[in-house]
């Protein structure tokens, strides 16, 4: 009988200790499940814990309202963007650049295929897009020159395409949407996708920076484009590898 009573007292002490330690998170409302239930039940019967809870709530209120910091993010932002620019200037993006694993993971989840196989699948998709774009160009040119080409003929090499941009399409973009956008902008995929899923797209002629920026804005304004930016020769050649 006495043993049972001792056990009950011991258990009550343990519950009190457990509740006491969890009180700060009961006060900030983040306790869950059985722990929340235990603390709630205990607090309703324990005067000591109720008093401590009151103190902790007051402490939290004081800490929460002591935020008279006058911080300006703008200065820090300028500095960090300048650091990033320097880094980007020093290192052209490579296949190890940030984002690779994340993007590959996203695509893999979407397509329900293993991440490791995704580059090959994307490469196959790119080949298909290049082939389709090639077919359109072949079709267009064969009309104007009245020449005959078979499906196995290679796509014509574009002599005048020199300004290049990098484009990442959203995961849901269909081949038809991509094709329409490229045709509308007189652009052509010349390389990609990179491991990040980025395509190198050549524009119709050698454009000056403001003209290129206009075309980029056109790309960026489309819902199917996640990211579009100027390309460098080196980046383009790396993606083509």
């Amino acid at each position, binding site marked *: 009988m006495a043993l049972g009573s001792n056990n009950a007292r011991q258990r009550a002490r343990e519950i009190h200790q457990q509740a*006491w*330690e*969890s009180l*700060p*998170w009961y*006060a*900030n*409302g*983040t*306790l*869950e499940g059985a722990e929340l239930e235990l603390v709630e039940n205990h607090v309703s019967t324990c005067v000591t814990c109720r*008093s401590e*809870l*009151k*103190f*902790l*709530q*007051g*402490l*939290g*209120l*004081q*800490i*929460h*309202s*002591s*935020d008279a*910091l006058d*911080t300006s*993010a703008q*200065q*820090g*932002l300028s*500095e*960090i*963007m300048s*650091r*990033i620019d320097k880094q*980007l200037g020093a290192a052209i*993006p490579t296949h190890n*650049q*940030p*984002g*690779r*694993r*994340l*993007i590959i993971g*996203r695509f893999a989840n979407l397509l329900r295929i293993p991440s490791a196989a995704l580059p090959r699948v994307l490469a196959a998709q790119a080949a298909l897009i290049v082939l389709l774009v090639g077919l359109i160009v072949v079709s267009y040119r064969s009309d104007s020159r009245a020449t005959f080409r078979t499906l196995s003929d290679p796509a014509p090499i574009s002599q005048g395409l020199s300004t290049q941009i990098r484009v*990442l399409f959203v995961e849901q973009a269909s081949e038809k949407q991509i094709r329409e956008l490229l045709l509308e902008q007189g652009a052509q995929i010349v390389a990609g996708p990179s491991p*990040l899923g*980025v395509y190198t797209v050549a524009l119709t002629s050698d454009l000056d920076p403001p003209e290129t920026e206009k075309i980029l804005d056109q790309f960026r304004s489309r819902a199917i484009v*996640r*990211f579009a930016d100027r390309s460098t020769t080196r980046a383009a050649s790396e993606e083509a590898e």
Partner: protein
Amino acid sequence: MKAEHEIELIRRVAIQDRLAFEELYLLYHRRLFRFILRYTQRLDLVEEVVNDVMLVIWQQADRFGERSRLSTWIFGIAYRTALKRLRSAGRIPDGPDIDELEIVDHSEPEPDAELSRKQLQELLADALAQISPEQRAVVELTYYHGYSYPEIAQIVGCPPNTVKTRMYHARQRLKKLLPQTSRGLIDQQGVGSWL
């Protein structure tokens, strides 16, 4: 909705989208500034540490596995970066368990008097400055940033029970450091939740 937007931002940062990074920077600057300042107590270091943290985020955004809240991941980076800086500045011992250190209480009892809200906050700031950085981080992450203790464990890289232990010692210390009058005032305000 907010969490989804943040996830969208970090995905864009992972492909080096500068606009997304700028938005994320502005979203987190104030919270990180406050946390790092409270944790380190070094105003001269804060801006630099905030930018070091944000640079890590720019470089390693693809490592965010989406297994936790984005803010938990970012605060974890902030905690480790600030800790490293404190250690290099010789403000914190290299040992892993700062809670085992004996802390000497140098505070003197304050005379009882009517305290204004401002004075109360000053007393609290003084008291918080006297507890260990590890304990302060736990207090700040709980009371200001509203994290659960498992999330704090993730941020500071220790077992959940260690978080509870640090908080337990912090509470004891704060009670000793705060004069009786201020404790009474804090009690009076402890009605309802602040979050």
